[in-house]
């Protein structure tokens, strides 16, 4: 994270952002991975992941955030997330039915339980996270003419 005083907000905001942005991202990933155990899941976690990047953009300016995820990468990742979700659904055909949960269910309340639910949550998390970030990018495309 470059500390360019020309762009973004004040030093206070930048310092706090630098401290918290990683935690926000981590919390988003936590929510995604525990979707089958606790409230939240792919969508809620994806929104938090997207917020961490939006946070970065607000504090440091557009360029810093775009350097991490570009618009092309966001749109490709979004399609990949959707394809992954469809693939998880199609996996069910191996067991005979669309969306059938074919993986071993494991012990309840373990992180690795509930079969394909966790895979679905991860793909939804990717899709929603980069999707929301791409929407935010599209909204900040307009800027003051120099």
């Amino acid at each position, binding site marked *: 994270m470059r500390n360019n005083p020309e762009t973004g907000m004040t030093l206070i905001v930048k310092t706090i952002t630098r401290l918290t942005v990683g935690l926000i991202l981590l919390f988003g990933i936590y929510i995604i991975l525990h979707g089958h155990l606790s409230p939240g899941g792919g969508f809620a976690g994806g929104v938090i992941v997207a917020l961490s990047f939006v946070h970065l953009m607000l504090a440091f300016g557009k360029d810093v955030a775009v350097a991490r995820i570009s618009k092309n990468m966001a749109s490709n990742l979004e399609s990949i997330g959707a394809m992954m979700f469809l693939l998880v659904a*199609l996996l069910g055909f191996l067991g005979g039915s669309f969306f059938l949960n074919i993986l071993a269910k494991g012990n309840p309340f373990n992180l690795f339980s509930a079969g394909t639910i966790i895979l679905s949550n991860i793909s939804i998390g990717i899709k929603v996270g980069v999707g929301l970030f791409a929407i935010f990018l599209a909204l900040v495309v307009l800027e003051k003419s120099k």
Partner: protein
Amino acid sequence: MNNITIIPLFVIIPLAAAFLTSLVGKFIKRSSETIIFISSLALFAFSLYARFLLNSAAGKIMVYKIGGWMPPFGICMVLDGLSCFMLITVNLIAFFVAVYSLSYMEQYTDKPKFFTLFSLMVCGMNGLIITGDLFNLFVFLEIASIASYALVAFGTEAEELEASFKYAIMGSVASAFIFIGIAFLYSFASTLNMADMARVLSNKQNEWVIPFVGVLFLMGFGLKSALVPFHAWLPDAHPAAPASISAMLSGVLIKTLGVYSLIRIFFNIIGATQGYLAVLMFLGAISMIAGVVLALSQWDFKRLLAYHSISQIGYVILGIGLGTPLGILGGLFHLFNHSVFKSLLFLNSGAVDYATGTRDLKETGGLGKLMPVTAKTNLVASMSIAGIPPFNGFFSKAIIIIACLEKGNFGYAICAVIGSILTLASFMKVQKFAFLGEIKDKFKNIKEVPFTMLFPMVCLAVICIFGGLMLIPSFRFFLDDAVAVILKGTSYASVVLEAAAK
């Protein structure tokens, strides 16, 4: 893998095509066109095959349990006569529109994005038609609606953006009404499965929930299908979209999102009483007359067609609102016919726009000599929509009028006749100002549009000419099965639940 596996394919194929297109379309030249052509052809073939399978299925119904969960708990997909009828209509039009778009969309940038949105719209419509779960219906409705908002704005000029904004606002209001309606039904019936809900509603008495929800759904789906008090978005949205999307919007989207959902919920879940039917007939009759009167004074080719969509949806709703077997048959047959000829008319308007760069009827003229195929197919479609005898529009309108007379609604029958005459007048105007007369000097050098645009127009024109044959007994099962599902009313519940239990 058995026969029943065909049902989820109607959602899987367009969804996979949509995201595959957006993923590889940018890198591999012509890949998006290939993917969309194959997927829409496959969908059309599968919808015909589903019709074939349905004939041999017990009770003419197939129920697919997603994830193997039994219906009241899991989501199920139901393929019955009505869904099959709608699936064939949607996928037929979607296939021809996809072929047409291959050349037509050359005018716009970023074809892969267009095909992604197009495919998502088809996915939404197919999903809405085959789902057996009320909330699932809402989700697919939103997929189709949101894709269509983006597609209307595809040109990103001021006009398109304004139309799309208006459409998005009105569409979201409609979705909100539908959503609140579903929430009330859920809190009352404690189930979201359509069949189970129909069962609960018929056993549990309540004085206010059903009428209240009925009004919410009428407003919501009325907005989606652009019946007259709710039609304000349509005359802006249809002309602003690319011609192929206008054809989809007018041809199938307003029918799937509006009319089909209305039929499914009012007849099969809530159970249509005479009160609802009277309201539907009244709205239908108003739409019929108001739409065509507004269309008469239009000079923009596509805007004129958009007003005619309102008018023709009025016929469909009037026929279905009659509630008699003949009326419903007429309404559904008109729904199919309107899909065919209105898509054809919009494709024609796109061809005129493609060749001349304008769709103002005051500027065009004499195009018949330079664009013979477009002119002839347009003549066929105009005669169909006006209800001239050998074409399909005549048969469906005649059935609706006879059904009105049979039920003793002479006023509505007269409205239908007047609407038809005014339609003829307005399409004579199109013929005169677009295709007949002298060619203007600045259009001396225009050429007929490319083959991929001509092929869908010719095919649709052939369907217009021979569409009336669907009424002869050996082909009537296509319509009769759909009518039977509607007439069964709330006993849909027991049919679906029994089929699911097997």
